[in-house]
């Protein structure tokens, strides 16, 4: 159950079941450390919180932060949504307990200072929470993707709506639902194509086009492909009309594959682009690159 957990520094190897010098073991350990993103928190009792983490090595973990709602808490400020932390947890029967926290990426402040960033970030956290459904199953790519997206959001390099849509498309790709916005999603015929069908997984050629398919603008297809591939030079100069159309399609895609609506999506405040859009060159479809450690998407 606790395979691959990193033993915490200073843990007594005899108590933790680790032989001295061995470092890794499959036996139960009372303490472990991991890098984690705080996805959400719930109040518990008088002053505690249940914190849901997306960890790098252990996937989704829920743990109790004792006394973190008190103003005198030593690490309450670090256990806020959007924070990337180095956390030490004590293994519990049902829920683990947070014993130490260090800040790795203090993104919460920057994100909360802009309402548009906050709503976009909340939708990202909710999507990650839904996509990584099972607890304690490693989701390394989802971890790095979300960490990169939060960093990009907090640094405001791109429009918050574009960062959100790019994150969603790439998170779905990592989860196994990669859309195609150039080649036909059904038969693979090279595009560009004019129709899009969410249930088929993206663009569809005239032969595969099922009834009820939509026909977005060609520029919207280009924008969606750019968001999926992380081609920011293309996405950043897109037109407001195409961004709106693309965000609607991404929302429909999310709802279809999650089989329910992301509640935060309806509250996302999308900015209008400051730069008028020039003509956009076509972008070939390619598998999205997952950001590496410390890299923004």
């Amino acid at each position, binding site marked *: 159950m606790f395979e691959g957990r990193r033993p915490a520094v200073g843990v007594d190897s005899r108590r933790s079941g680790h032989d001295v010098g061995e470092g890794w073991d499959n036996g139960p350990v009372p303490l472990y450390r991991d890098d984690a993103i705080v996805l959400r928190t719930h109040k518990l009792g008088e002053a505690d919180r249940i914190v849901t983490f997306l960890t790098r090595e252990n996937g989704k973990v829920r743990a109790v932060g004792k006394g973190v709602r008190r103003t005198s808490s030593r690490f309450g400020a670090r256990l806020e949504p959007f924070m990337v932390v180095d956390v030490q947890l004590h293994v519990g029967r049902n829920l683990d307990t947070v014993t130490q926290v260090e800040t790795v990426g203090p993104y919460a402040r920057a994100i*909360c*200072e802009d309402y548009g960033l906050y709503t976009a970030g909340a939708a990202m956290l*909710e999507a990650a929470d839904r996509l990584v459904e099972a607890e304690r199953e490693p989701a390394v790519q989802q971890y790095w993707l979300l960490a990169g997206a939060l960093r990009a959001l907090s640094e405001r390099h791109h429009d918050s709506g574009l960062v959100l849509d790019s994150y969603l498309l790439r998170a779905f790709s990592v989860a196994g639902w990669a859309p195609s916005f150039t080649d036909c999603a059904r038969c693979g015929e090279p595009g560009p194509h004019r129709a899009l069908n969410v249930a088929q997984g993206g663009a569809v050629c005239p032969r595969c086009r099922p009834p009820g398919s939509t026909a977005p603008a060609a520029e919207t297809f280009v924008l969606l492909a750019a968001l999926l591939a992380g081609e920011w030079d293309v996405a950043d100069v897109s037109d407001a009309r195409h961004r709106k159309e693309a965000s609607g399609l991404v929302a429909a895609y999310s709802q279809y594959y999650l089989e329910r609506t992301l509640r935060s999506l309806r*509250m996302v405040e999308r900015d209008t682009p400051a730069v008028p859009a020039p003509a956009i060159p076509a972008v070939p479809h390619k598998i999205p690159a997952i950001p590496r450690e410390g890299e923004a998407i």
Partner: protein
Amino acid sequence: MYEGAVQDLIDELGRLPGVGPKSAQRIAFHLLAAEGHEVKRLVDALTEVKLRVRFCELCGNVAEAERCRVCLDPRRSDEVICVVEEPKDVVAVERTREFRGRYHVLGGAINPMENIGPDDLRIKELLTRLADGAVKEVILAMDPNVEGEATATYLARLIGPIGITVSRLASGLPVGGDLEYADEVTLGRAFEGRRVVGG
């Protein structure tokens, strides 16, 4: 599992926040062992609170009339409104004895993941109160967490253009604590919000 009335009581107590099955059972047996008049006092208090207590039509605080005692107090200033999330925050601010203005209770904070948006809070009522021009300052006293900060950002953006001064409660070091134990987020805010003490 107990029978009839005892189990019903345990079930009802178990629905209260923070009361688990074991606590519910303990409270139920305490009530069973208690004197009749003690139980009646509790029943009367519960009935009375539901009959008499409501939310103030102006500020949203708990009240026993159409308006709460703070809104009815003529000695308090109408020029400053302190916006808080919950009625219990009013009590916390009142304990300081530093604030002599009025309150406005939002009824929560914006939390998209819990499906709580601006329309679910008493923001329209706040804007209505600000429309008459009597209010000179709005103090945003939401919780110093992500949801509270985002709600404060939203309100500041909404109220700022009206021309009313909008302030936010300072964040910083708790009185009586040691600097070395402060986390970097709190300490960073304390540095940002430092004030000149001399000269």
